């Protein structure tokens, strides 16, 4: 005799870090984005980060919607500019844990310059780049990450440009932590995200993720699962691999793992040590409390 489980007894273990009133998501069936968010949710809980002091910033695109499904302070900014917005948040309130979660087109193409410079100045933020190898939200146009042989709506004969090796780019620019996983590697991804959340400096994780609707369909994958199977079969874990060897090449193994893990002083640490006595710490946020009537304790002198 089977036991009937009360539906009310079932809870999603990551529920408390999701905005449940925003779910279901807008994402297609078979999309890998939700899977990456699941790993991120577990990582948030495992990292011990104070969720009230954690902000998530996205740019535009399918991946750009991630910020709106996570129960943190969520900022859905403009196309390509999540990193500079996140930079402003972090600089003005160093207590915040700041995560940028966006797509490959957003972060590496229109926002590519910001990616380079945030890594160079070692801004203390974590960047998760979901790479679906296509501009999905706009209908499947070629991205800087689209593999040469693949077709898209704007490259119907295949792309004539080699794809970008993102880990190599951020490594060269000075990132402290660089890893790549796929939506198939949920546990490794979660572990990597947890580790990266706890680390200081500019941290970068690339996650390959199936887009069955706009990439897979045109490039010989029957559905999201077919792309997941390819990740499973083609992925090769190579921790510490030199990033110049991890380019994604059609028909070749997909190198995943943690490629870079190093320490160097982040922007604010360097600023404080260089300024020394010239820096005068702000006691409180410098905008006044807007509440002159109550004269609360710890309030500014407004």
């Amino acid at each position, binding site marked *: 005799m089977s036991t009937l489980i009360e539906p009310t007894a079932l809870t999603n273990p990551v529920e408390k870090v999701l*905005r449940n009133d*925003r779910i279901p998501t807008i994402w297609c069936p078979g999309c890998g984005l939700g899977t990456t968010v699941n790993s991120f949710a577990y990582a948030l809980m495992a990292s011990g980060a104070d969720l*009230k*002091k954690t*902000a998530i*910033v996205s740019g535009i695109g399918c991946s750009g919607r991630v910020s*709106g499904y996570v*129960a*943190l*302070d*969520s*900022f*859905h*900014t*403009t196309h*390509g*500019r999540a*990193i*500079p*917005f*996140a*930079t*402003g*948040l*972090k*600089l*003005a*309130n160093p*207590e*915040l844990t700041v995560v940028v979660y966006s797509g490959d087109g957003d972060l590496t193409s229109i926002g590519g*310059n*910001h990616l*380079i*410079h945030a890594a160079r100045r070692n801004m203390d933020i974590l960047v998760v780049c979901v790479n679906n190898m296509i501009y999905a939200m706009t209908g499947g146009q070629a991205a800087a990450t689209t593999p040469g042989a693949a077709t898209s709506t704007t490259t119907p004969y295949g792309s004539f440009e080699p794809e970008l090796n993102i880990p190599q780019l951020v490594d060269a620019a000075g990132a402290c932590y660089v890893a790549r996983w796929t939506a198939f590697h949920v546990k490794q991804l979660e572990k990597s995200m947890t580790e990266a959340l706890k680390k200081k400096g500019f941290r970068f994780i690339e996650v390959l993720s199936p887009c069955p609707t706009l990439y897979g369909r045109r490039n010989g994958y029957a559905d999201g699962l077919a792309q997941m199977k390819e990740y499973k079969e083609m992925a090769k874990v190579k921790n510490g691999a030199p990033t110049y060897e991890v380019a994604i090449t059609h028909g070749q193994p997909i190198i995943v793992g943690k490629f870079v893990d190093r320490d160097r002083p982040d922007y604010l640490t360097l*600023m404080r040590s260089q*300024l020394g006595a*010239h*820096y*005068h*710490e*702000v*006691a409180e*946020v*410098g*905008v*006044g*409390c*807007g*509440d*002159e009537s109550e004269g609360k304790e710890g309030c*500014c*002198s*407004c």
Partner: protein
Amino acid sequence: MHAEKESVLTGTHFINGDTACCEGLLAAGAKFAAGYPITPSTEVVERFAQRAPTVGGLFIQMEDELAASITLQGMVWAGQKSFTVTSGPGYSLMMEHIGYAAMTETPCVFVDVQRGGPSTGLPTLPAQGDMMQARFGSHGDYSTISLVPNSPQECFDLSVKALNLAEKFRVPVMFMMDECVGHMTEKVVIPEAEEIEVQPRRRTSKKPDEYLAYEVGEDLVPEMAHAGEGYGLYVTGLTHDKKGYPLMNPKQQRELVTRLFEKISRAADELTIVEADGVEGADVVVVSYGITSRVAMRAVHLAREKGLKVGSLRLICVWPFPEKLIRELAPKVKALIMPELNMGQVVIELERFAAGRTKVISVPHPGGTVHDPLEILEAIERGAQ
């Protein structure tokens, strides 16, 4: 609330407009800023980079203006007052984020030290060619505030006001300087901190579970919470509901965009900021703003010497345009004269509100230098006929 003592350089100084602008923004409570170098505005952030750490703030030079114009908004949402400074080409690059600030109601100041354009134009010479861009530059429809100083003293006084208005109405305020005013060195008196009124951030007094980020009261301006305060903010450039959640339909679009306009239009009286000289009983009134107003004043004096009844109306707040004032003034005069360092931008609004009830004479100038006062005098004489 008044300015913090440590941020205010009280005293009498001999400084240029760019420096005075920096001191004004500091006095108004900005301790954080992001920028990217561009002539003729760079002195503002050079000064700020030196001053900010001494008051517990910082300046970051970003990789471009696209970055600077949104980094400052991150600073605002983290709880600080912030601004950026640019000129011509950089201002064009910042347009998208002026729209983002208008949509998300992020209080901040964009300083544009105008130079000759289009394109790279005249990097070291003045113009007022960005006035329509200040009003309509970003895509979509929004309403904001533009203040135009005509002296280093006003670069101080009005930059304080600019940040105060930004905080009060939760809009990006355009501080429209020009190369002349920016590089001109004059006496600037900075008062005691207690004499400088500062608008505090309009922070919510509600608890997180009662708070709706875009719920508004009487003045249509929502109260703010910051990242890291436990409010679980949702901020997006998409059309959104009171919670801040994306809600994209015609009804919500109407509600939101109408409110973004109305919060400014309702304050039309407060935002009518002008300086009038001999307007009462004048036959002809010269309407001008910024550096051009100083040249116009010379023309007004010359005309008065010739016995003409001429007044001067200087627009200190150009946007929103002082519609009511112009509607009332137009039927009382023979002509309104508008010199500007562009091919005729704000004069379009002047004509619109004069609505055929008086002659409107434009005195355009492509920039690179200021008008010859005699050009303006000639227009006054034509108007007086």
